[in-house]
């Protein structure tokens, strides 16, 4: 019998899962309850994830056998420092973003609140499932739960949303199917689906072409799902047209969790030695990522729509994470892990700000934001902090992930990557300062000075503002305390041999 803090492994999934069924049942009668149920469920998961993380850090890896079946036959949930960390990241961001979703959902989707939160919780369940599971097929199932909910959530957005969602369905299904094929190939040669078991069975088979093909399918599948550069085409539309509550939930988390899958596949299922030495997968990935960083930034530069700009910047930031993974040395991986955390906070903050702008002004064009800073000083302050962090100005979190990535690139003696990271921070500066300039400065001569019609713009309600401020404060604190996170958690989360 397992003590309660081990049972948290499963509670972290079944609480949101059961709550998501409870929402339509209770929401039928009390529409308002949907939000509170969702918030409570995610809050409970947050508590569970914190318990898990502390347990992992003090007592070592947790193995949870679902249904009492022993691995490799039964499904096993494994919590090691890496996914303990990921769980906390996902839960924290989800909690904050959900907190802020109340008003914007009421405004944008007044009739669909109940269904919205049902699917929302399912998405959260899927993400958490991906994080905790130690079984490659179970991971596929959760991947699809998360993706299906995401398709649905994106489709309820405005104008181009259904088409964006359809494209995402097509691309996402290809990605998931490739992942499934990868699982199939591994299953042919090993007869196992358990990650730890696979890791044991695979090394003698490293010469096999089948294993190589499996790895290729895994990589393409996850690359599509996380929007790595040439395969990113679904991402900008989906993030732009989704309702603001959705884009501020999906943008920070979805792609990060997919990056987590990549890490798991490369460094847990396969051994680092395989992806570095036997096949140069890691270095191929890092080169693709380098292209992604630059291309994403340049594409972001061309946008006038704030949310679309942020979406393209996500494409470039995914590049950072993959670059760190591909460097496959200690500093690079630490940079990648840290950037998963940091970027989740930054994008959560920035998309929430974009949502707040939509909520109060309905404007997304960055050239129509003059004088907003007087009306919404706190929101815009958060925007500045988020933007500075994206650029990589020191005390903010974004600087430090860049710092470790640069150290990793130097360690790998790869000067091109150093140049890419540095150049991209300049490009980031270009497009983010364009926003800041438009928000804070009024061009005195012949600018857009007249107030738009409609209700006078003012600061967003507290339920939206508080999460934004917390996220912004989080960015600063993560930057200042990054060393604690690294030495406390991330060093333990590195794959063996680093």
């Amino acid at each position, binding site marked *: 019998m397992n003590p309660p803090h081990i049972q948290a492994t499963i509670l972290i999934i079944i609480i949101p899962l059961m709550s998501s069924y409870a929402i339509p049942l209770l929401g039928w009668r009390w529409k308002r309850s949907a939000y509170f149920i969702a918030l409570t469920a995610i809050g409970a998961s947050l508590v569970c994830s914190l318990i898990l993380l502390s347990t992992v850090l003090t007592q070592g890896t947790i193995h949870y056998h679902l249904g009492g079946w022993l691995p490799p036959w039964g499904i096993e949930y494994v919590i090691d420092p890496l996914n303990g960390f990921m769980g906390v990241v996902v839960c924290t961001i989800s909690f904050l973003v959900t907190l802020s979703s109340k008003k914007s959902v009421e405004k944008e989707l007044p009739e669909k609140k109940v269904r919205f939160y049902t699917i929302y919780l399912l998405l959260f369940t899927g993400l958490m499932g991906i994080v905790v599971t130690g079984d490659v097929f179970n991971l596929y199932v959760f991947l699809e739960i998360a993706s299906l909910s995401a398709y649905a959530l994106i489709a309820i957005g405005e104008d181009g949303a259904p088409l964006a969602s359809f494209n995402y369905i097509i691309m996402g299904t290809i990605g998931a199917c490739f992942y499934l094929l990868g699982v199939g190939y591994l299953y042919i040669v090993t007869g196992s689906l358990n990650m730890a078991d696979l890791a044991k069975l695979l090394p003698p088979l490293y010469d096999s072409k089948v294993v190589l093909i499996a790895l290729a399918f895994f990589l393409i599948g996850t690359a599509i799902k996380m929007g790595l550069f040439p395969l990113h085409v679904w991402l900008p539309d989906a993030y732009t047209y989704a309702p603001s509550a959705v884009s501020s939930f999906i943008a920070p988390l979805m792609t990060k969790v997919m990056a987590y899958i990549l890490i798991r596949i490369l460094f847990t299922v396969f051994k680092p030695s395989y992806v570095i030495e036997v096949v140069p997968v890691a270095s191929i990935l890092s080169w693709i990522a380098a292209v992604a960083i630059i291309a994403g930034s340049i594409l972001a530069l061309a946008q006038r729509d704030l949310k679309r700009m942020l979406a393209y910047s996500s494409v470039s930031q995914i590049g950072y994470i993959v670059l760190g993974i591909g460097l496959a040395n200690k500093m690079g991986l630490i940079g990648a892990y840290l950037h998963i955390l940091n970027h989740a906070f930054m994008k959560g903050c920035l998309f929430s700000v974009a949502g707040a702008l939509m909520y109060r002004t309905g404007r997304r064009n960055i050239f129509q934001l003059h004088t907003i800073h007087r009306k919404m000083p706190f929101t815009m302050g958060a925007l500045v902090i988020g933007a*500075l962090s994206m*650029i990589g*100005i*020191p*005390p903010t979190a974004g*600087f*430090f992930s*860049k*710092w*470790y990535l*640069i*150290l990793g690139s*130097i*360690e790998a003696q790869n000067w091109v990557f*150093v140049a890419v990271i*540095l*150049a991209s*921070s*300049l490009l980031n*500066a270009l497009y983010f*300062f364009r926003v800041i*300039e438009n928000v*804070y*400065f*009024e*061009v*005195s*001569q012949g600018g857009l000075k007249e107030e738009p019609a409609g209700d006078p713009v003012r600061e967003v309600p507290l339920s939206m503002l508080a999460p934004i401020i917390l996220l912004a404060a989080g960015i600063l604190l993560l930057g*200042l*305390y*990054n*060393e*604690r996170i*690294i*030495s406390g958690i991330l060093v333990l989360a590195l794959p063996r041999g680093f």
Partner: protein
Amino acid sequence: MDIVYSIRPLLAILVSLGAAALILASGRRPNLREAWTLLAAVAKFLIVLSMAPSILNGQVLEYTVLPLSPGISLQLRVDPFGLYFGLLASGLWIATSFYSIGYMRGLNEHAQTRYYFCFAVALSSTIGVAFAANLLTLFLFYELLTISTYPLVAHKETPEALAAGRKYLTYLLTSAVFILFSIAYTYQLAGSLDFVAGGFLKGQGSPETLRLLFVAFILGFGTKAALMPIHEWLPTAMIAPTPVSALLHAVAVVKAGVFSCLRVIDYVFGPSLLSDLDLWLVLGYFVSITIIGASLLALAQDNLKRRLAFSTISQLSYIVLGAALITPSALMGSVLHMAFHGFMKITLFFCAGAIFVKTGKENISQMNGIGRRMPLTMAAFAVGAFGMAGIPPVCGFLSKWYLCLGSMEAREAVFVLILLTSSLLNVAYFFPVVYNAFFKKEAGGAPPVREEVSWWMLAPILICALMSLILGLNPDAFIHFHQIAGMVAASIRGF
């Protein structure tokens, strides 16, 4: 060297950050807001000053705030050089605060809350740069300084001001990229980033690598120090309000750049490594181009503030030159010149601002006879101009003297020649201003009326001018600039 753990360096940084928060909170009540500014300025100076006795006794104050990255901490250390810069910046901030209030009220500027807020943050970062114990901490504050001064440069919000702001950011963020690279590389080479008097890079890496690293460092920090091919942001930034120009030139920004250059030259590379790598002479010639070139360009400017800007560019290179010539006297002169140039240049900028506030004139050709309208202001201007040219009773002479001495010690007389030429050029571009102001008749022919600016502005002008004189006569007056500079030189080059 005793290391004393003390929280005072952190307090010195936080006091103006706290003030910044209070300024934001009391944006609607100008009097309260400005009271915070003044209070913070005085408090900061007193805190910095309170550290002086222990430093003069040979101690070093240290405070570790938190670890930033494995092996590197956000650490503050007050050594003589840091204290020196801290004293200079916080002392001049008081003057600038008073002057700002007069200037901003006099012109009834907009967005004053943002202005004071950014000012306070910029000062915090400057003190942070001064007290940083390692390169990463320095870089942290250095970037904060860039970001916090950007709204000040673009303050007027006209298209030109915005363009100037963009240019400012472009130059400084690009340079930050070089700095970041060099810091990361240094860390990879040496495994440490802590400043050590005399440098810590010796024996790490091949000479080619180190030369490359040095170039990257100088490209990075040199941008803020406005070395010649990468100086263009500074004259463009003159569009900003005059107190901001004063902040940029005398107190914070370019001084932080020069300070960081000196930190790199003397505390990262160290003189002996530089001479091993044969870099010092190259750097010396490189900045000599700036010294002469900027002076020549200054001659061509009609806008008074732009002329001052080019003068700053030229004078900053004196400081870097002093560090590049690896002799004790040169370093002494270089360190002294940091402070002296600060006092003189701030006087000159304050005067330019005062003229603008009172008469709206910005161009030198319009300033005939202005000395009869504003005799006190223009007298102060004259003192500053004399100092720039290195004429004895004013403090500029003293630092130049040391610099020339240093060039002699280094057996590179050509630099003496360059310094003297530049002095002559200084005379050439400053004296016409003074001459026209006092001895030419005003264009309209109307009888000149005495109309000085308000005492908020006039007092700082006069005090700074007076300080320039007093420091020239007794460089150890009040805050022991001379003695501290001596300690710096001794710690590095064994004076």
